[in-house]
Every structure is written in structure tokens, then in C-alpha cells.
């Protein structure tokens, strides 16, 4: 693409059209751009357009976004259509000045684009970048052009982030050294010069804001550069850095801080960045840091006492408390040993931060999903409530008794205050519950816990039960939520009779209008149903929920009708769990399947919440499995309900749901007695559409469905060229390492279920495509699958058929395969069914085939026996070596759904050799029988070709079955 007025016009028009509200011109423009993106110098042309001042800002913005995305997919040389090196060089030359002179929105995009390049090229392939940024930084600083200063610092910050969260290695250290050599000293001088400017600009709010942001960015860069190791330059200049840091913790900037919440937030961001830095030093460079420690503890402490008392300031509070937590667990923990200090910590820092704020209440009401994520699922590591408890835990590491005593006292206080005036002081009770739950120790089995702070049973009785028994399900919802959470967390410790007495109340809370409350109620029930005694025995059974099943299900489906809970995953998960456990009578099954199908039809419109959707499909699968197992007459009713929905998923191409739909269909096919009803055969034909098989997420589910069809309706396969289509799919799958295993899953049921006469004409073709694949790339998995396939073939269709069929590809091929593939790799077979199958087939081959009984083949015979004995006598983990997973960058075709197995739509493992119970016995018996026919012939062969260890193992096997090989 050449840069000329036509190009400018073309691109401008395209980018303008992409913003059009009309779908038609928008799609055309998108298509034009994506076609143009394949021509060389496209990226360069777009970048030039971004830089063209005459073009409308809106168009340039959209071009900047396109430019960034273009680089994201094409900068890496391994991408499908990479940008050429020459074009890259030109882009690299242009981008820095362009970014610096751009308007803020475009600057942000270009800075990101630069980071994309940097991720791959910086520093080795882009040696000019850092010097360029450095000199621009100096110029901008001298010119007091702080917009540019911040642009450059932001860019450096994103470039250097690569040094965080990496293991130390020489290459990464070399890169770091390069960055340090070039940027450590300029960073310090920038910080010092900005610090002077901050003092000078004390009253100029706008400038001060920029400068404080610049300092924050410098702190973040400091963090990246110090992450892996303490660099010499920073050690030598520690005094200077620390005095700067302390400055920002102790100084106030009224012009900014008092100008409103965002001004305070800006300064707090800087202070939080400082806290991150000193936390890092405290943790990793304590030797250097100790002389600054007490000064910082004091500064952070004073800051915290003020910040804890005010609303907002969450991020600062969190990082500051984190710093104190690190100190409390370090060798300097004695700083916190004094009784008075401990008292202050609990009273002035912990309690104010644990106490609910307006923000918490707002979140509770406005965004229940996020509230639950933080409150219940532990993504609250960065909230002030949680970090305050972390501080207590940290100190308790060394002063457990003192902390326990103080926190117990605080809990007592809170409850006493609540008792004085429950309506006004309800937050104190919430605080008490939160402390008990958060300071509990997690135990095995997900979220169950224990605590030393209170006696759980009596706390439950006196504090929690009254809440649960409250009649108004919508009153004091945060307390109700806290009580339900407590019940959930301590469910293992609450005796069954007490829990049972409250179960009705919990079911009642499902009808609360408050989203958190009905979610917690559902979650509580769901987790109770999972409680196991002694690790095996479910504590609550169908008998326990039977009496309230109808009201429970009614309330659960009712909750799904409440605003914002239409796709509430906690509710759906509870439905799924109940259906897994309860006794499902037709009276319950029928409304359930109707309810679930209604929900399914709704989510098909616009699938949003994958967890909800998964639980929904799982719930359907459970219901189908358990209801129909008990009562096969229900099958047609279920089909009537479900099939239209499943067909709609296929017809409307709700691709996210394809894997689920195929699994449910397979389940339905399995439930039918042959012959399979004709409407299913339409689906069979859909199944053979090659496009479906292109999406890797579909493949396991399609295979599962295909297997069901093959087993239920093998003869249907023979009609209308379907077999040929199926084999085409097999060919396609087996040609790629990523799907080779699936290919065998398609083939195996054919081999197992069809007569040889039907497939004879295809076999030679099947073998030759397999052996070609073997020649091109012989993966261990392919070899294993092949051995299993040949074994299956052998036991189903006979030895000679197998040998002839393989030899029809090429004379004597079987001998070769046996010698080079089968025997050496027999010991790599894993899985009970597979080991049994291949051991039995190998033994049959050994004892019944003229090929091996030929005296000239005695070496082959001996080796095969050796392999069989290894397979049978050694446990899997001793035979099989780890193999590295083959990385496979399969092409991505369109939207990628992911395959998730439906636990309840699964198949039981089918054993093709049900008649043989013990493969060891079978093999040894066959061998003993053979040796009886050829007395004296085999012992010398065994002595010669079977390893001593295996000889011993064989002898042991013989003895245990009382057989002999003579």
C-alpha cells in the first residue's frame, strides 16, 4: 500500500464508515480494511493517517485503535501474515515522536501499540528506543512539557513491566541490566527534578496534578527495576530514594487533595505506589531497608490512622496495611509486640476498616455479583476489610494469644453494642460476624473452616440463628447475608439436627428480593448437600430434602424470576445439586424439565454467563439421566421438551452451546432402544457436516454423539454413503496431532460394531492413511492409539483378518509393524480397559498365529512375550515415561467455544472384552496351554529373550494361577 492522496482518502473513508450506525456501510468498511491489512505497508499507512493533522480527530482515533490491533496480531514473526522487517523499522522510527505529539486519546492508543512492539522487540531488536525516550524525557522536563513527560514515563512503565513476576535467568537479567544502565540514573534525576517542581508548583493545581502523576509513574518504574534484584545503583542511592518516598507519605498537597475526591485519589495513588515499593524492599531487601524501617512504619501508621477514619481511600489503606503486615511477619515483628500498640492496631486500624462503609452497602445493592465475588469467593485480597484481617493474622504469627484475646474482646464489644440498639447498631454485629469468618482457618473441602476465636456452636446459636429465624426475608439484608455466609462456612461444624431445623428457614430466604440474600441461601443449601462425614458418607441425603423438595424447587425457579437473577449462577448450581441428590418423582421431573427448557430457550438468545450455562446443561443432563434411568417411560416426554430447543441451537448456530447440545443428544440417543427414531437420523446427517468438525471444541462432543449412533444404529450407517462420510471425518481428525486421538474414537466403534464385510472395502485405505501419518510424525500417542486399534480389530475380527488386511497395503507390512511399533511400544499402553485389551490381543497373537509360531520367528515371539509380561506385571507409572505435550498451533476457525464435559451426560466405559475377567489369568492360561502342546520349546526362548526381571515376574504369575510353562 503506497502512501498517496488516494490511500489517505480510501482509509479515511473506511475508518469513517466503521463508525457508521448503518450496518451495511460499516460491514463493507470493515471488510475493506481487513482485506487491505494483508497488503504490505498497511500498518505504516494507517500510522501516517493517525499523524495527519488535516484528518478529523474521530477518524484518527479509530485508525489508532486499528493500528494497535493490527500490530497485536501481526508483529510477531510467527503470526500468519507478519509485518515485514522493513515496514517494522519505519514504524519504529515514526512511533515515538508521533505518540508524544498526539492528543491524549490517540497517545494512549499509540503508547499501547508501542508496548506491543516492545513486548517482542525491546530491548535487543530496538536499541534506539530507550536512548530516544531518555533524551525526549530530558527535553520535555526542561521545557516543563509535563504531558509529554507523562507520556514517556507511561511508555517506559509499560515496557519495564516485563521484569515483574519472572523467574531470574541470565537473558532476563541481561535485559534488565541494559535498562538499568540506560535508565536508572535518569529515573532518579527525573524524580528529584520533579520533586523540586512540585515544591515550586504548590498552588498550581493543574500542574501539580501532572507532576504527582509523573512521580507515581516513576515509583512504578522503580518497582519494575527493583523487582528481580536490588540493583547496585539503587543500593548506592537508597538514601535519596527513601527520602523522596518518605516525603510523599508525609507531605500534604492541599491544592490537589482538597480539590475533591479525584484529587485526593490522585495523591493517594502516588502514596500507594510508594507503599508498594517499601513493602517490596521490606520483604526482599530487609538488610538495606532496616535503617529506614522505623521512620516508614511511623509515617505509614500516621497516614493509616487518618485514612482509616475516612471513607474511600481504599487503595491507599490496602497498600499501607500490607506494608505493616509484611513488617509484622518479618524479623522486626517486635515493633508490634507492645500491648498498647496491639490495642491501637485493633481499635484504630482493624475495626474501622472492617466496619461496613457506604461503598460496601452500595456494592451490595447495585452489583451483587461483584459483592459476592469479594465477600465469599476470596477475590477480596485487595479490599480493606480483608487486608485488615491479614494484618491481624500476620501479627498472630508471633503473638497469637494476645491477638486472640484482643479480637475476642472486640467481638464481644461489637455484640454488646448491637444488643443495646439492634436497629441502629446492626453494623457492629456484621463486623463481629466478619471477624470470626475472616480469621478462621481454611480446611480441606473447599471452604469449610475452624476458629479459635469463639465457640462455634454457641456463637451460631446465639448470634446466627436469630437472624436466620427472622420472619421478614428482606429486612437487614446484610446481616442476613452474613448469617447465611457463616452457616455456609462453618457447615461442617454445625451438627446435623441443628442444621436440619434451620433448613426450612434457608429455603425461605430463597424468596428474598435481595439478590445477595437469595444467592447466599442457594449457595448454603448447595454446599450443605456436599458435606461428607469421614470423607465419604454424604451427611444430607434425599431423605433429608425429600419433604421440602417441592417448595425448594419452586423457590429456586422463583428466584430465577427476580430482577438481575435471571442468570444467577448460585441458584442454577443449587438446582443442579438438588437434582443430583433428590429422589425425582415424575411430579417433580415434569415441572423441572419445563422450567429448565424455558431457561435454556431464554439463554440461547444471548449466552452470557458460562458458569450459569454450564450448570444449566449439567442440571438438564442430571435430570434426564436420573429420571429416565428410574422411569424409561419418561423419555418421550423429555424428548418432546428438549429436542426442539436442541434443534434450535443447531439451526440458529448458537455455537457456544454446540458441545453441550451434542452431549445431550448423545445422552438421548443412548436412552432409546434400537431402532433409533427417524428424527434422530436427521441429526445424524447434520453430524456428518465437515464444517462442524473444524472447531476443536466440538470434536469431543461430536465423537461422543457419533459413538452413540454407531452403537445404537450400526446398520443405518451402511446407507446413503454415511460410512464413507464418517471415514472422511476420521481421516481429517487423524491427520493432525491435536485431534488424532479423537480420530481413533470415531474409528474404534466402527471396528467394534460393524461386520468385517461392511468395512472390508475401506480397510486398506484406513491402514494406509494411518501408516502414512505414522511415517510423517510418529507421536507416542499415535502409536498407542494404533496398538489399541489393532488389538480391537484382532479380538473382534480375528488374527488372520488383521494380518491380511494390513498386508493388503503392502506385502509383509504386518511383520514390520509388529516388530517396530507394536512390540517396542506395548508397555506404554495405559488405562485399565486398554491394557486388558492389548494384553489379551497380544497374547492371542503370541499363541494362536502361525506367523509367530513359526520356529524362525522365535526372537519376535520372545520379544512380544517380554512386552506382554512388562505390561501385565508392572504398574503403569513404572512403565510409562512422561512425554512432553506436543504443542500444536491448530488454526482457529471463527469463534471458539470451549468444550466442557457434562459430568452427567457421560458414558460408562464400555469394555469390549466383558467375557474375560482377569487378563493376567487369561494370558498365562493361554500360554500354559500352548507350552503344553510344544513341550520344551519355549523355556529356552524365554531364557534368551525375556529379561530376568520379567522371567521372575512370569514365574510368579504362573505360580499364582497354579499354571506352568514347560
Amino acid at each position, binding site marked *: 500500500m503506497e502512501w498517496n492522496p488516494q490511500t489517505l482518502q480510501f482509509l479515511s473513508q473506511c475508518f469513517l464508515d466503521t463508525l457508521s450506525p448503518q450496518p451495511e456501510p460499516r460491514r463493507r468498511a470493515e471488510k475493506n480494511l481487513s482485506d487491505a491489512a494483508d497488503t504490505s505497508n498497511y500498518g505504516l499507512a494507517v500510522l501516517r493517517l493517525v499523524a495527519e493533522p488535516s484528518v478529523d480527530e474521530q477518524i484518527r482515533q479509530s485508525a489508532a485503535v486499528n493500528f494497535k490491533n493490527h500490530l497485536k496480531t501481526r508483529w510477531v514473526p510467527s503470526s500468519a501474515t507478519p509485518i515485514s522487517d522493513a515496514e517494522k523499522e519505519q514504524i519504529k522510527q515514526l512511533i515515538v515522536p508521533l505518540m508524544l505529539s498526539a492528543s491524549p486519546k490517540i497517545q494512549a492508543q499509540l503508547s499501547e501499540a508501542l508496548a506491543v512492539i516492545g513486548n517482542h522487540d525491546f530491548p535487543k531488536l530496538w536499541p534506539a528506543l530507550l536512548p530516544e525516550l531518555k533524551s525526549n524525557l530530558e527535553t520535555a522536563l526542561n521545557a516543563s512539557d509535563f504531558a509529554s513527560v507523562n507520556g514517556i514515563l507511561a511508555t517506559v512503565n509499560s515496557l519495564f513491566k516485563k521484569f515483574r*513476576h*519472572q*523467574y*531470574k*535467568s*541470565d537473558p532476563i*537479567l*541481561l535485559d*534488565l*541490566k541494559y535498562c*538499568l544502565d540506560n535508565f536508572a540514573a535518569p529515573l532518579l534525576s527525573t524524580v528529584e527534578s520533579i520533586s523540586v517542581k512540585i515544591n515550586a508548583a504548590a498552588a498550581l493545581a493543574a500542574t501539580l496534578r501532572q507532576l504527582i502523576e509523573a512521580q507515581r509513574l516513576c515509583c512504578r518504574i522503580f518497582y519494575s527495576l527493583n523487582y*528481580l*534484584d536490588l*540493583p*547496585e545503583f539503587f*543500593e*548506592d542511592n537508597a538514601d535519596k530514594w527513601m527520602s523522596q518516598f518518605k516525603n510523599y507519605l508525609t507531605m500534604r498537597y492541599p491544592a490537589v487533595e482538597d480539590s475533591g475526591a479525584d484529587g485526593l485519589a490522585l495523591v493517594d495513588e502516588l502514596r500507594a505506589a510508594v507503599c508498594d515499593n517499601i513493602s517490596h524492599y521490606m*520483604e*526482599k531487601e*530487609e*538488610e538495606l531497608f532496616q535503617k529506614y524501617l522505623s521512620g516508614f512504619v511511623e509515617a505509614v501508621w500516621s497516614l493509616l490512622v487518618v485514612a482509616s477514619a475516612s471513607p474511600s481511600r481504599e487503595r491507599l489503606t490496602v497498600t499501607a496495611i500490607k506494608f505493616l503486615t509484611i513488617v509484622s511477619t*518479618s*524479623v522486626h515483628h517486635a515493633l508490634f509486640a507492645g500491648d498498647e500498640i496491639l490495642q491501637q492496631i485493633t481499635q484504630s486500624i482493624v475495626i474501622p476498616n472492617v466496619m461496613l462503609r457506604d461503598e460496601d452497602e452500595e456494592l451490595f445493592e447495585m452489583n451483587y455479583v461483584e459483592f459476592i465475588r469479594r465477600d465469599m469467593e*476470596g*477475590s477480596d*485480597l485487595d479490599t480493606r476489610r480483608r487486608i485488615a484481617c491479614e494484618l491481624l493474622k500476620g501479627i498472630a*504469627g508471633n503473638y497469637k494469644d494476645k491477638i486472640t484475646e484482643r479480637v475476642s474482646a472486640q467481638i464481644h464489644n461489637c455484640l454488646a453494642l448491637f444488643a443495646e440498639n439492634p436497629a441502629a447498631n446492626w453494623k457492629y454485629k456484621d463486623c463481629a460476624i466478619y471477624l470470626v469468618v475472616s480469621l478462621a*482457618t*481454611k*480446611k*480441606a*473441602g*473447599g471452604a469449610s473452616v475452624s476458629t479459635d476465636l469463639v465457640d462455634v456452636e454457641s456463637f451460631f446459636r446465639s448470634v446466627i440463628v436469630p437472624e436466620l429465624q427472622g420472619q421478614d426475608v428482606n429486612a437487614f439484608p446484610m446481616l442476613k447475608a452474613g448469617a447465611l455466609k457463616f452457616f455456609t462456612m462453618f457447615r461442617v461444624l454445625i451438627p446435623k439436627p441443628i442444621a436440619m431445623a434451620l433448613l426450612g428457614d434457608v429455603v425461605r430466604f430463597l424468596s428474598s428480593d435481595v439478590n445477595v440474600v437469595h444467592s447466599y441461601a442457594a449457595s448454603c443449601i448447595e*454446599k450443605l448437600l*456436599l458435606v461428607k462425614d469421614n*470423607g465419604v458418607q454424604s451427611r444430607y441425603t434425599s431423605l433429608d430434602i425429600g419433604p421440602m423438595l417441592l417448595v425448594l424447587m419452586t423457590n429456586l425457579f422463583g428466584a430465577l424470576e427476580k430482577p438481575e437473577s435471571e442468570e444467577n449462577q448460585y441458584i442454577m448450581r443449587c438446582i443442579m445439586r438438588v437434582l443430583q441428590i433428590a429422589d425425582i418423582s415424575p411430579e417433580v421431573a415434569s415441572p423441572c424439565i419445563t422450567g429448565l427448557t424455558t431457561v435454556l430457550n431464554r439463554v440461547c438468545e444471548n449466552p452470557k454467563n458460562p458458569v450459569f450455562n454450564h450448570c444449566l446443561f449439567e442440571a438438564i443432563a442430571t435430570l434426564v439421566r436420573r429420571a429416565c434411568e428410574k422411569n424409561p417411560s419418561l423419555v418421550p416426554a423429555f424428548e418432546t421438551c428438549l429436542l426442539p430447543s436442541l434443534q434450535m441451537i443447531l439451526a440458529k448456530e448458537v455455537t457456544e452451546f454446540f458441545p453441550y447440545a451434542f452431549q445431550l443428544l448423545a445422552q438421548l440417543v443412548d436412552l432409546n432402544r434400537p431402532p433409533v427414531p427417524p428424527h434422530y437420523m436427521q441429526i445424524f446427517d447434520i453430524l456428518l457436516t465437515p464444517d462442524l468438525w473444524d472447531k476443536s471444541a466440538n470434536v*469431543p462432543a461430536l465423537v461422543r454423539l457419533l459413538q452413540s449412533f454407531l*452403537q445404537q444404529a450400526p446398520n443405518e450407517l451402511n446407507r446413503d454413503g454415511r460410512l464413507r462420510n464418517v471415514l472422511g471425518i476420521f481421516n481429517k481428525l487423524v491427520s493432525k496431532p491435536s485431534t488424532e486421538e479423537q480420530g*481413533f*474414537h470415531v474409528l*474404534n*466403534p466402527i471396528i467394534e460394531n460393524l461386520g468385517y464385510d461392511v468395512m472390508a472395502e475401506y480397510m486398506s485405505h484406513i491402514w494406509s492413511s494411518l501408516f502414512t501419518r505414522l511415517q510423517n510424525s510418529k507421536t507416542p*500417542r499415535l502409536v*498407542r492409539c494404533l496398538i*489399541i486399534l489393532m488389538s*480391537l480389530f484382532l479380538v473382534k475380527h480375528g488374527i488372520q483378518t488383521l494380518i491380511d488386511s494390513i498386508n493388503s497395503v503392502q506385502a509383509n507390512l504386518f511383520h514390520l509393524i509388529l516388530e517396530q511399533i507394536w512390540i517396542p511400544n506395548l508397555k506404554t499402553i*495405559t*488405562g485399565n*480397559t*486398554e491394557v486388558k485389551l492389548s494384553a489379551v490381543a497380544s497374547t492371542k497373537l503370541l499363541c494362536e498365529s502361525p506367523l509367530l509360531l513359526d520356529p524362525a520367528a522365535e526372537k519376535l515371539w520372545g520379544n512380544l512375550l517380554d512386552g506382554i509380561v512388562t505390561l501385565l506385571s508392572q504398574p503403569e*507409572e*513404572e512403565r510409562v*515415561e*512422561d*512425554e512432553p505435550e506436543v504443542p500444536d498451533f491448530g488454526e482457529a476457525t471463527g469463534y471458539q467455544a470451549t468444550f466442557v*464435559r457434562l*459430568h452427567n451426560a*457421560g458414558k460408562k*466405559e*464400555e469394555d469390549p472384552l466383558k467375557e474375560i475377567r482377569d487378563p493376567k489369568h487369561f494370558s498365562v492360561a493361554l500360554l500354559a496351554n500352548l507350552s503344553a502342546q510344544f513341550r520344551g520349546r519355549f523355556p529356552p526362548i524365554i531364557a534368551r529373550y525375556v529379561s530376568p526381571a520379567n522371567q521372575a515376574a512370569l514365574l510368579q504369575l504362573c505360580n499364582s494361577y497354579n499354571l506352568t510353562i514347560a
Partner: protein
Amino acid sequence: MADESAATPRRDPIKNPVGNTAAQRRRQNAVSVGKERREALFRTKRLCRVGVSSDMDVPDDSDMMIEEEQSILEAQTSSAVEELKNAIAFQGKGAVQKKVNALRELRRLLSRSEFPPIETAITSGAIPLLAQCLSFGSQDEQLLEAAWCLTNIAAGRPEETRALLPALPLLIAHIGEKSSMLVAEQCAWALGNVAGEGEDLRHILISQGALLPLAKMMFPNKGSTVRTAGWALSNLIKGPDPKAATELIKIDGVVEAILRHLRKSDEELATEIAWVVVYLSALSPVATSVLVKTDLLQLLVERLATSNSLQLLIPVLRSLGNLIAGDTYTTNAVLVPGHEITDSIILALIKCLKSEHRVLKKEAAWVLSNIAAGSVGHKQLIYKSEAMPLLIQLLTTAPFDIKKEVAYVVGNLCVAPADGSGRPSLIFDHLVSFVKSGCLRGFIDLVRSADIEAARLGLQFMELVLRGLPNGEGQKLVEKEDGIDAMERFQFHENEDLRIMANQLVDKYFGEDYGLDE
């Protein structure tokens, strides 16, 4: 056969996290961004305050330190350079003495001031003049004074050191056999300062042939010369390119000289030689494989056992650690359990673990972790030694950096080396006894730390406890120490490796029934 999961190879997902890493010897990274912890003052660059030879006739007054205002000092310096320029231009009688006098004055200013006026000397044009004074055939006294001046200029800031570039060929020429010992030593000192500055300068020195003559300076038994040469060499070979170290070890006589000096010399000289060994063993596998076949290990262990000099103990420890980590011959053939040397090294390391010095403790733990990565015999030896209570105590109470090294020792003691099948297994007795002594808590602290290597180590140990202790005992212990919470922190961690490891552990040992956590 029907279920598609049936033919999937069953693999134990958890065995991979432990194996390779927990029982590994660790070499220090060749590239370092941190400050060199040599503990000796002015290690990389050294100002020469007193001449290399005490019998040189130096006027008495020059022993006094100059205490002048900086501005006066600078004025004196530029006039001294001016004087030198005149002296070189002067052709008449006493020209040589005039030059020497001018050099001596400049040298006095550069060596006797608290803050030597190096910058002034350079801007006044001293370097080309000094290089000129190094020309061959000049008197020793002149050469010595000129080299001394250059030495102190090279001890300055980076750009000041670089200013020596034009003088390097002559300085190198004078460390050859043709020059007197004293001149050679002073020139070696100057070169040592240059080499200490940076990798690019080391490259230049090596390409100009500094390595061989410096190596040969180590051969005689003259203490001060060998000391200076050893120090300069250690600067010259410190990489990160290993080429120089490999070349050095191949020079005839070098190995013998190193061994001789380490056997006989005083602690000061032994310190410099030990630093040479540090870099040889850290960078060059060739050098390491040569050195481990000599009695170097024996000598180092003796030094470790008998010396109380921190300056000497640090490079000795570092060398031992490198030799053990770098070549399996060390643990397989020399430090064999049952040999006297093995008992001695463990005793000496225990001495260091007990020492007051933080660095010694840390380095000793590092060396011990490398021995602990050896055979089961090694592990048992350490396990039965007096090191055990020390390790346990350090793991719970020491500062973070020491704790981390100790954790490597403990981790290695609990894992047996991989046998033929590539599968390391755990040593039950050791694990149980460490866990009984409360070590799990220390490891869980590491899991919580921001240091990702330490966190990995903590997770690996937790995995051992979970896998190794019978009857779900491990789960209970991890639970009790709040380890589940510590692991759950990694649920969304940026480091993929740790995230996977932690999530696998939680799933495998603490997962509830299907469906609870997708």
C-alpha cells in the same frame, strides 16, 4: 473403549512440580544487576595511596595526607600537569629528573588527597602526557610514577576510568617480562581498575593481550605482586562472557600457581586468589571441571575450617558452592560420604551458619543446599549432623534472604535424587522430622512472600507434605498452618507456573466433589 477419556494417558499431574527443581544444584546467575558483595572496601577499583614498593625512595613529606580546599587542590593539579608538559618538552640537562619530579608531584596530588582531583587532571590533558612517560626505555622511577598516576585516575568515576583507553597498550606492554617487577605490578594495578569498570573494557583489555602476562604474574612467590595480579585477574575474567575464564585456566602453570598460593600464602593473598577461583568456577564449566580434579577442594575446605577472616571466607564459600553446583564430579567423587573431607566441609559450614555475619550464614546455606542436592548419602550425612537444629531455627527466625537459602537446603534434604526412570521420590524420615520440628510454617511463609522463587519453593515443599505424609496427615497440617489460604492467593497470579502449581495442589488435595469449582 467408548468413553473418550479412556485412552487418554493417565498422568499424575502433580509429580512434575517437585522433581526437577527441588533437588537441584543452583549456580549463582552469571549476570548480576546487584552490587557485588565482596565486603572488602574498594574491591573493584582501588586507589593506590602508598606505592607498590616500600623501598622506593619516596620523600618523607609525601606520607602526609593533603588537606587543602578542593579549589586549591584543583589549581595545584592543573599546574602540576602543566609542569609535566614542560618537563616533557624540555630537552636539556636533568630532563629525566625534571620529568620524574613533575610526575611525582602529580602523583602526590592524586594519591594523598581525600578526594583526588582526577577530573581536573584529565581535563588538563594528563592522560596523553602520562602515556608518553610510559614509553619503553624510560627509567623505572618515571614508569612507576606515571603508572601510579594512571592507577588513581582509573580508580575514579566510570568516564574517568574510560579516559585511560589511549594508555592501555603501553600499560599492558609493561606487565610483560621485559619490565621490572615493580613497574609491572603498578601497571597491573592500573589495569585492574580499568577491568573493574565494565564488560566492554574487559573485552578491550583481553583483545589487547592482557590476560597472559597478568596470569604469569601470579607464578612467582612474591606476595604483593601476586596479590595485585590476582585482584586484577579477578576483575578481568568476571564476565559475564566466560571466554576469559576458560582461556585463563588453559594457560600452563595457572592451576599450579592457584593451588600453591592457596596452600601456603597468608590470608590476604589467599583472598585474592580465592576471588580468581570464584570467577573461574562461576563462569567456565571447563575451568570447573579442571579444578575439581585437583586438591583445590581440600585446600578450600581447610581454609574454611581454619580462617576467621570474613574477607577470605566469602570467596572460599562462593568457590566451594560453584564447584559443587558446577560439576557433579565434586559430590560424586570428592565429597563422598565417608571421606574425611566431607565431614570437614560440613563442620566448617556449620561454623559459618553459626557465625554472626549475615553474608556467611547465607552463603553457607547456599553451599549446603548444593551438597544436599547430592546423593541420599549426602542427605543423610547432613541430616545426622549438627546442622539440623541450626537449619530449623534459621528457617523460622532468620531474615528473608537467609531463610530462603535454608529452605533450599531443607527442601533438598527431603527429596531423593531421580533414579533411572527420571522420577525423584521423597525421603520420608527427613520430611517427617522436618515437619515435626515445625518447618512447614516457614515454608508457608515463603509461599506468601512476594519473591516468586521463594514462593515456588514453598509450594514444592507443601506438595511433598501433602503427598508424603500418610493418612491425610499432610492435609491436616497444611490446613492448620492456613496453607490453603496461602495457595489460594495464586488463583489469579501473573506467574503462570505458580498459578498452575498452586491451583493443582488445591484441586488435588482440597477439592470438593465435582462441580464446586470450575
